[in-house]
């Protein structure tokens, strides 16, 4: 238990940020719910919530960064941050698991049943006698009309290469920060964020292509549902990760990190690698297979 020897850190500031965060959160999701019900207050509440939420992030991290620079954090606090970030990423992995699970279940169980195989075949006999299961499918009722699936070897392949390269540039930046080469850190981080941004640009391009030319939309049955939800949530996480790395880039320029003390950098790097790995899963299971 060597790491328990350091003194425990007790926050001494008055902490309004959590309650501010709660107000922001409830403003956002409550506003979104109201918006979905067509209530006019919805949009205002969402914007208000988002602004409050962003202010909270800014303020909370400001306090933490100040405390970190004041040397208030012991080795123990550092360990705590590491455990915290690690398990947070694990919870995110489980969130994606739910959507991958839906994809696997539909493709290997419920769709074969709908086309007359196995224990679910009675639905086929009674309701959808003409349905044959060929992936990609928008189901026996052909929801959303005729469409084409998204092929893997155009933009998705380029995007895979982009994200893999961004993992390399980020690792290069990490090695540089440990060695104290600030210029290399800045170049590496900048390239990572840039690659992430190009990735997102191509994702938008791909969505436009899907909606305009392939007639592939959210409403295109189970294929459209799983395709857009998986790639959409992934894209959202890439955006978050890129913003986080951009903040880190600014902080590197401000000289916030030392070769010994740069956990914020590492946490964001972990997050970026997690987003990378999820993309590999997507590329294999959503695009190729």
């Amino acid at each position, binding site marked *: *238990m060597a790491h328990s020897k350091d003194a425990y850190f*007790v926050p001494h500031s008055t902490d309004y940020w959590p309650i501010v965060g709660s107000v922001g959160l409830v403003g956002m999701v409550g506003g979104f719910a109201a918006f979905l019900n067509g209530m006019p207050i919805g949009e205002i509440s969402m914007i208000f919530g988002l602004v409050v939420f962003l202010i909270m992030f800014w303020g909370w991290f400001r306090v933490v960064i100040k405390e970190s620079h004041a040397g208030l954090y012991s080795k123990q606090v550092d360990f705590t941050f590491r455990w915290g970030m690690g*398990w947070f990423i694990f919870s995110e992995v489980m969130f994606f698991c739910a959507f991958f699970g839906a994809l696997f*279940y539909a493709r290997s169980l419920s*769709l074969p049943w709908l086309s007359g195989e196995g224990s679910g075949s009675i639905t086929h006999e009674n309701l959808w006698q003409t349905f044959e299961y060929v992936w990609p499918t928008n*189901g026996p*009722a052909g929801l959303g009309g005729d469409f084409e699936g998204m092929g893997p070897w155009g933009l998705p392949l380029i995007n895979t290469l982009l994200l893999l390269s961004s993992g390399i540039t980020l690792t290069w930046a990490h090695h540089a920060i440990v060695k104290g080469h600030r210029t290399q850190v800045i170049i590496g981080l900048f390239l990572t964020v840039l690659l992430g941004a190009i990735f997102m640009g191509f994702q938008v391009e791909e969505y436009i292509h899907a909606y305009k030319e392939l007639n592939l939309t959210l*409403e295109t049955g189970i294929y459209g*549902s799983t395709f857009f939800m998986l790639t959409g949530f992934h894209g959202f996480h890439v955006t978050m990760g890129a913003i986080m790395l951009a903040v880190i880039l600014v902080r590197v320029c401000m000289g916030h990190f030392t070769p010994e003390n740069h956990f914020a950098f590492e946490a964001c790097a972990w997050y970026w690698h997690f987003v990378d790995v999820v993309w590999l899963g997507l590329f294999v299971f959503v695009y190729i297979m």
Partner: protein
Amino acid sequence: MSDHDHGPAKGLLRWVTTTNHKDLGSLYLWFAFIMFFVGGFMALIIRAELFEPGMQFVDPQFFNSMTTMHALIMIFGAVMPAFVGLSNWLIPMMIGAPDMALPRLNNWGFWILPFAFAMLLSTLFMDGGAPAGGWTMYAPLVLQTGDAFPFVIFAIHLMGISSIMGSINVVATILNMRAPGMSLMKMPLFVWTWLITAYLLIATMPVLAGAVTMLLMDKFFGTSFFSAAGGGDPVLYQHIFWFFGHPEVYILILPAFGIVSMIIPTFARKPLFGYASMVYATASIAFLSFIVWAHHMFTVGMPLSGELFFMFSTMLIAVPTGVKVFNWMATMWRGAMTFETPMLFAIGFLVMFTLGGFSGVMMAITPVDFQYHDTYFIVAHFHYVLVPGAVFSIIAAVYYWLPKWTGYMYNETLGKWHFWLSAISVNITFFPMHFVGLAAMPRRYADYAVQYADFNAIASVGAFIFGFSQLLFLYIVIKTVWFSKQESKATDQVWEGAEGLEWEELTSPPAYHSFTVPPVVK
């Protein structure tokens, strides 16, 4: 670091900004207490309507809202926050830490809850009423919910966020803040069970978030996750939900195992029998909880191989659970037993939880479950494991640690009254449900056939006695916390047989930050 032992801030705002584990523990516990009465009030509306056949007080839609809201509030608003409150209060004191590892996150985890439940309760007043499709929110029925629908979905998202924050904090605290010498296998069992519970929460709450997100998308954005017309499957929802839902029921019971494992040795004046096997049994139960989920859906038409797999994996759980029950009994065997209120509730837990476990094994048998599915038998089963199980353990914990927290003893006579009233009435309420369930009375209906009348009347009488007995509990707690007299001062050890850091090293009540200097554990 001279001002480590600073006391609480002044004024009411202290409770909004506090980062102290004891303050937050109290907030969690009081929040859970309030929600316990709100959810209990809804239960009494249900039992009043079911007192006799025919429609008496409420319309069927509202009745269904009550069953749905009662479950959501009791699970996410009462039992889970109560356990988190106990973890906040006790884990730092038990492992020799001054506070939780992430104090600010701790505050945020709590202060999301009042907002989430305000949102959930506000749906009672919306067009179309509160959600009425059951707490499991099965598609496609739940998609018929009125204006309440998106608010319920987001309330659940908020509760999930809060739980994940709380769990990350518990994991970081236990793995990182133990006093020197407090090795993993020396940790009190309550700490162990919470560590494992926290892992379950981190692994499953995001899956629930995914499931309800799919519901939201199906309702508002035209996706077809749960619509066969588009190639999805309504049963898919049940699989994802119960992949969360079954670990969730162990989230509701593992900390209870921990509590009982602390209380029984104290009043039997013997160390816990089979400590290591308790730890391994808890871990086994947690592992198994991930591969049994489809026993909640034996009747949806799974392949035979699926039915068999989930039947056998479910029965396996009886093995580690049996180890625990055996160990608790062996701990009491030839002990110098006394029966103070916490011990009474712990023994009540042991007997009645085991009864609920037996009916669980009955329902694990797939062909038999075809008869029991969605009848009052399942209602009897899960109320036996949750009321005299989880809730009794929480009550036991409050009686057991209240003198440590406040420095004053509660009124033992009133405590015993509380126990006997609760223990008798809880059986009057839920035991008859086994009979009407086996006779095929379906759950979640506002009315029933006349042949079920007698047992339902008995159950309703029991429910009202149980409900009002809890007011006695409220009185005892309020009196102990705020109106104790000097002569009821508790000693530091409180209980003659109590062992562990919180009894041996800390005063009653303990300092604001318990261990500013970590104790050395031998």
